[in-house]
């Protein structure tokens, strides 16, 4: 028990299924206003997630290495002192990312950006598409380097 008490219970849930549910030492989260790291005993917090990587440190998975990464796009996170629940709209392992598709998505986003004109809504939407694509590409290339 003594060791377990310093572990966070981390859960990653997508609309389709629960992707990850394990105790871990720390989690890095891509909040909408920047990355943050959560350790055991963090103050309760609710935040909206942007596009980026969720990194779980010291998870108890066999053979997964010291860290596990997931690329997530949009969602919400609830942090409690001993528990982190991530509600992601979409989550992928870096190996699963389809890079050519992400590239196409970025081009599409840039196209939207050019067409946005005066509409603020269209700009926000274009930004969303671009940042999601860029986060995916970055995550995939990082995974390729580490191998």
């Amino acid at each position, binding site marked *: 028990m003594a060791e377990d008490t310093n572990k966070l219970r981390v859960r990653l849930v*997508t609309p*389709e299924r629960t992707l990850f549910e394990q105790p871990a030492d720390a989690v890095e989260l891509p909040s*909408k206003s920047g990355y943050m790291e959560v350790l055991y005993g963090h*103050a309760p917090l*609710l935040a*909206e997630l942007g596009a980026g990587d969720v990194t779980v440190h010291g998870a108890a998975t066999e053979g997964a290495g010291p860290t596990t990464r997931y690329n997530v796009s949009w*969602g919400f996170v*609830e942090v409690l002192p001993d528990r982190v629940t991530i509600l992601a709209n979409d989550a992928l392992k870096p190996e699963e990312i389809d890079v050519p598709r992400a590239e196409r998505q970025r081009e599409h986003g840039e196209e939207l950006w050019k067409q946005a004109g005066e509409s603020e809504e269209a700009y926000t939407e274009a930004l969303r598409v671009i940042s999601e694509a860029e986060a995916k590409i970055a995550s995939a290339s990082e995974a390729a380097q580490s191998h």
Partner: protein
Amino acid sequence: MANVLDLRRRIRSVKNTRQITKAMKMVSAAKLRRSQERALAARPYARMITSVLESLVRRVDLFDEKTGNLVHPLFITRPEKRILLVVISGDKGFAGAFNANILKTTYRFIQGNPDKEIDIEAVGRKGRDQLRRRYPVASYVDQSNQEGRPTQWRDARKGPVEISGDHPGLLVNLETSRVEDLAHSIIARYVHEEIDAAYIVYNEFKSVIAQRLVIEKLLPLIEVGKQQIAGAVEPTEEEKERRAEAALSAGIEIEPADTTEAEEEAEKFGTANVDYIYEQPPEELFAGLLPQYIFAMLYHAMTESVAAEHAARMTAMDSATNNASDMIDDLTLHMNRVRQAAITKEIIEIVSGAAAL
């Protein structure tokens, strides 16, 4: 009177049919099991979104001081003049009255609202095909405005009821991104006051036996976390019995796996009795969560409908297999009688021939 050879041929053909319906039943049972799992796997997310919204509504001041209404466009109720109806049917036939019942409910809803303009979003191929025969499809014109940007203009209505969009193949893989697009388009239409309300017609699937057809109100939101049922068709006892029988013979558990523990866990999401730090202003969080809530409701409806479709097909195919067996028994009996009669006749002929000698 049919001769023995004809009867034998018919029996063979019915036997072949029985083989096919039996195979289809087993296939549906396997698919049902998979879609049931998917429906269950999708529940934690939906529960969590709902509970965090509920708790946000309770603890944060999101109400307008003057009117006492929630400050968000999705909570604004207007007189219902234009309605959007999302009809979720099956992609394939051979599912008993599954598709017919959905369409019947849809037509009844439309007839019950004769003075309103209704847009239909058809999900599922069967329903789309039928609705298209009955109602005109809305047409859009692509135009460029002064800055040369393409915009879409909707043509004048051809009738009070129009099909504003269809989504072929959406139910096959149920990709979340496509469901999300649909949810966002519905929200955009509501916010831009193109529609005053949105309903969804689908088959609810609690377990193999407990299914019902519901019309659920999607927008405007009145209260988060409460299903707004505008109408429901409950199955009869007889139907329930048939379903239980079919499930039993296909080896499907009648009650789905116990998930109460996981669900209780999910309900706690975002509701702990502490003061949260809000990374973003609560209003912003709230505005971000609402579209996800609508999406979760839609996705939930679709996963349930797919499971219900497979269950309906399994039941229908089980009935067909039983009917085929009954028919084979009848035909075999009939064939034996005919054969007997022929033999008796021949014996009489021989005997009377011998007596005449």
